[in-house]
């Protein structure tokens, strides 16, 4: 196995660099792969939702004793969780643009949301 210093980025006449380039010469498919992985993982939740609906459907509890799905507090927390990724994404963008204030702002918002999330979780488990 010979090695060579030829830059694979600029020349892909593979015949001359064959022995070096191993698996680095293809476009970046990480986004594609990640989307596929996320689709797969969403099946976990699809399965759990289906199970939840079935549990409700076959439950022997009388109508009035059936526990209601809590919507308000978990809903707020879900919103916080989802928005947090956008906020961190904004913060990252700011880092790339050397915008210190922007970073502070977005991290600050993120911290505030974190505290709210924690408080809501406490409330939720307490009840």
């Amino acid at each position, binding site marked *: 196995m010979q090695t060579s210093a030829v830059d*694979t980025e600029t020349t892909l006449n*593979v015949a001359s660099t064959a022995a070096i380039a*191993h698996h680095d010469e293809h476009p970046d498919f990480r986004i594609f792969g990640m989307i596929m992985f996320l689709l*797969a993982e969403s*099946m*976990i939740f699809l*399965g759990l939702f289906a*199970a939840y609906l*079935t549990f409700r459907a076959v439950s022997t509890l009388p109508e009035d004793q059936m526990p209601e799905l809590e919507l308000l507090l978990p809903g707020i927390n879900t919103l916080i969780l989802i928005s947090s990724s956008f906020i961190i994404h904004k913060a990252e963008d700011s880092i790339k643009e050397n915008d210190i204030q922007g970073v502070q702002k977005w991290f600050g918002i993120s911290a505030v949301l974190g505290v709210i999330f924690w408080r809501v979780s406490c409330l939720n488990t307490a009840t």
Partner: protein
Amino acid sequence: MTQAIAENLPSSAPPPEQGHHSPTTWRTFFSFSEDHKVIGIQYLVTSFVFYLIGGALAVGVRAELATPEVDFVSRELYNQLFTVHATVMIFLWIVPAGTGGFGNYLLPLMIGARDMAFPKLNAVAFWMIPPAGVLLIGSFLVEAPGSGWTSYPPLSLVNGQVGEMCWIVSVLLLGTSSILGAVNFSTTILKMRRPGLQLTQMPLFCWAMLSASALILISTPVLAGALILLSFDLMLGTNFFNPAGGGEPVVYQHMFWFYSHPAVYIMILPVFGMISDILPVHARKPIFGYKAIAYSSLAISFLGLIVWAHHMFTSGTPPWLRMFFMVATMIIAVPTGIKVFSWVATIWGGKIRLNSAMLFSMGFVSMFVVGGLSGVMVASVPFDIHVHDTYFIVAHLHYVLFGGSVFGLYAGIYHWYPKMVGRMLNETWGKIHFVLTFVGFNLCFMPMHWLGLQGMPRRVAEYDPQFATVNLICTIGSFLLAISTLPFIFNAVWCWVKGEKAPNNPWNALSLEWQTESPPIPTNWVGEPPLITDPYAYGTKSGRKSIGAIRGSDLWAAKS
């Protein structure tokens, strides 16, 4: 030409790492190698070791069943033996060998890629398997799981926490590994094909892997969901599946089989693909009905997702649901039949080389047909009510998974061993291996049909003495099966070291993986891989020409 390619490159492509270019030694196979060929062989050897362990457990099971009484092992140990046997064979042998082993080794070679789309992820996926396997097998030292590989609650909730948790964690790890592998396979097939290679020009194995990957991605996470809920019930005292606390055990069965029925297709689809690629080579004829075989893989993949409740015809499911799943299950016979008839038509009229790879392939078709036909029978609700959870099912599933998947895996090993190792396997030993396996297999599993019909339930350590003789025959068959692995192991190990050197294309095959060295260099090809638009062009002049004449560079230039 170079520009056209360079445009596709990400600006931050990492520089080639030096570590990968040292020659492949035995040490490489114990390293965190990112070479798909190394990983493929790692998968194959690891899963084969687990196959031997799972086989040893099966011999334990059969030894216990040699007599109607409980005399060889205790009842508890017996339940653990068949539980771990099934889990090992499914999650640590057929799935990793079929998808992980052959998928990793062959896919990039077949589509003209230099590696998988995500080499690091690939290595991570492989290295999740040994710890999961050790955890599962190691549980025998403490307390092995004993609720069957289905692990139905409430039994799995009362059978011992330690063993059950070992099982859950192990299966979760293996499932994750399988999902990561599937992400890799599907991205590689869809995105990494050599420029100019159409989907409908790929070898059929790639189609099969695409279908299997789709199944893994859709169904495996649901099993993960079920196992997470089960572990909550087990460890945290929730009552999702525990009827004593108002839970619903049947929901677990639905979630479990939503994965575990597709799992059957995850185990058989790659083997379908391998057989479609092996038969034309040794029969010297083009595959019969390429598109029908390719699309029937997708059809099986889709139908495989909507038939799971046929495992639950006696679980108190509503009547309309049973009828729906019965019809859906029966329909799967159609795409499967297309494949079988196409294979037969492929070898019909050829110039058949009756070597070990071909014998195992033909054995595969024969045995799989038996499993497929009994599969249609058990799809019928009134009949399934009689044979569900009996030895008829045991016979059926082994005809599909042993007579099907395992015969196919053996065929694949005999066929691609020269490419992987660079040495030929010994044909005489191969044929001895085939005969022993074929006889042992049928001796072991054919009589089980009768046992089930007559009234022997599965998963029992003791049984009605009227079944003693037939069970003894099955046990003898299983011992023969155990012995049949010896010539194979001897052959594979001996030829790895001392076998006759293999030429680059010993079978004179047309598909892309044979148009390189044996074993291939780390970059798979010197220069661009050739473009093969018809990997099955046996007997045609153009097919012959396309390989020698058209070099990859021609097409790359044309594209720019």
